[in-house]
């Protein structure tokens, strides 16, 4: 039957088989063809695809994986499953960096107990390791600024560096946090908190990330050296240095001084006058 038809390669290829092949051979052929097709497609894709993008389970380091577990327990109700934020609840954390997480979590501000004008400092829920893990997770999730490791102060004994820190503090910080670092009121119930309990890392991360209404002081504006100078000034000159003139009355300035002169000075002297001269 095959020899009757006109021949040529093309003609032969166009001709249908006069007789179907055997079933097994057919099956085998299918498998081979499928395998070849898949390999071809996969190869082309692998060559031309733009590279692996984040899917539901990105590759995280161990610390970040631990952080993700903590995040899923405590943070997604306001910040969303992928830290993309929830409207009217919590902002997106993409790009905030480990520094922001370190600040908010180590000061206990996050997790926030309720929605209010400003998140107050409170006892931290997570310990140092857990904070680090959460920070690593957010860092790997969306990137952002990080607090450098190591000593965050100006070189010890360098008074001029601390003095420069003082200058920078007075230009950039004292307007909100007061000359003493004791904090101050902002509009409508907000406030710049006291720096009394802040650690070096918390000071650094706050400057770097600008939490809530605090302005952001990026590394181009205040270099890491300048941030360290400010930290030296705050921690040493403001906090460690004791008042030389006696009790500082809370370092509030004239308000407590005025109160003291009446409550101590005038009261003591009026009682003395009562003792001296009595009543008529």
């Amino acid at each position, binding site marked *: 039957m095959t020899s009757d038809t006109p021949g040529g390669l093309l003609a032969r290829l166009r001709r249908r088989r006069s007789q179907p092949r055997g079933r097994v051979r057919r099956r085998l052929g299918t498998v081979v063809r499928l395998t070849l097709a898949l390999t071809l497609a996969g190869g082309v894709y692998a060559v031309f695809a733009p590279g692996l993008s984040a899917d539901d389970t990105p590759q995280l380091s161990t610390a970040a994986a631990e952080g993700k577990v903590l995040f899923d327990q405590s943070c997604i109700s306001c910040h969303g499953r992928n830290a993309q934020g929830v409207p009217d609840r919590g902002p997106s954390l993409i790009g905030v960096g480990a520094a922001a997480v370190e600040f908010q979590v180590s000061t206990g501000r996050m997790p926030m107990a309720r929605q209010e004008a400003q998140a107050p400092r409170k006892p931290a829920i997570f310990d140092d390791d857990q904070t680090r893990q959460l920070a690593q997770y957010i860092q790997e999730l969306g990137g952002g600024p990080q607090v450098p490791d190591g000593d965050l102060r100006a070189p010890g004994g360098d008074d001029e560096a601390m003095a420069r820190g003082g*200058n920078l503090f007075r*230009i*950039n910080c004292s*307007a*909100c946090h007061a000359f003493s670092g004791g904090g*101050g009121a*902002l*509009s*409508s119930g*907000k406030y*710049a908190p006291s720096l009394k309990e802040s650690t070096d890392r918390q000071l650094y991360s706050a400057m770097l990330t*600008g939490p*809530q*209404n*605090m*302005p*952001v*002081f*990026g590394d*181009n*504006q205040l270099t890491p050296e300048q941030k360290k100078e400010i930290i030296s000034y705050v921690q*040493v*000159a403001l906090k*460690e*240095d*004791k*008042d*030389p*003139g*006696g009790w500082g009355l809370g370092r509030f300035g004239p308000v407590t001084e005025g109160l003291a002169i009446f409550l101590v000075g005038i009261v003591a002297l009026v009682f003395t006058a009562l*003792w*001296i001269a009595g009543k008529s």
Partner: protein
Amino acid sequence: MTTETHDHGVDRDEVDIFDPRLSRFEIVREGARRDGVEIVHYEDPFPVPGTKAERRMVRTVAACFWITGIAATAFLVIYIWWPWDYDLGSNKGKLYTPLLGLTLGIACLAVGFGILMWGKRLMPHEISVQDRHDGNSGQTERKLTGESIVYMADEIGFKRRKSLGLIALLGLTPIGIVAVAPLLGGLIKSPTKDRILFRTGWDPAANGGRLVRLTREDGTPIRPEDVSVGGQMTVFPDIPGGATNEHADSPTLLIHLRGEDAAKTSADAKPVNQGSQWGNYVAYSKICTHAGCPASLYEQQSNRLLCPCHQSQFLITDNARPIFGPATRSLPQLPITVDEDGYFVATSDYKVAVGPAFWERP
């Protein structure tokens, strides 16, 4: 001394104070009487000398003076020998001032209470009454003095020589002014000269016609990427002394707004502020238009600028107009751009006067 009580107001004859039988107290009382003072009650708290109560009181007063001496000596010792050099941290030098105050205070209080207790407890109690002899001088004296004064006018002759008096007055008036003129004149300095109240350090005219760059406090110029989104920087004109009190009206706040805030600010800019913004960057005068404090508290999320002195609040996204507090005028906006080297410059001085308002400000 004895306890003496007398009826107030009983008239007695003059006592002969040279009478040798009089006691000293009686002479004193007579002297007081002649000064219009009646000693009506005089009682020694310890009429019998040497009682236990008296000795106890004397010991108490003596103790006060002992404490004075000890405290004063302690003050001197501490003043001279206690270490007082200033060192950071917590050290003995920090106790210098408190110890000085404590010892001096105790010394003063002890001597004070010693003196007071001596007077109150050891000395006789007395009640005296003195006539006031107040009221006016009486008709006779008034007439005598009044007529003397009026007669002076007659003597000088104001009525007789009226024109002389008038000319004297006219001539003397300028002398009175002459006495005061140099004091006031030396103080007068015109505020309208050079329009100093309307110009700041950003004026190119004071910079040789060149546009003035924005600098940090240390004088380095500023690129846009130096200020982060949501950040603010205090900037100064790039002229000699620009970052000092010599140009106290020039400090400016450079703010990098978020995209949507910047778009809103640009769209809502009032005519005088149009074109002053550069990209997402705005620059407003830091000198509050209420009383001149630097309005420095920038809230990056609410875009409010709070001045700490009297709580004026300015809305940065709406021409820095005041939205709370006693301020009535927006913060002037500094028109900025970036020069060919990539640094911020001011394209001109502020378009309105900077700082607190004054009479001549339109």
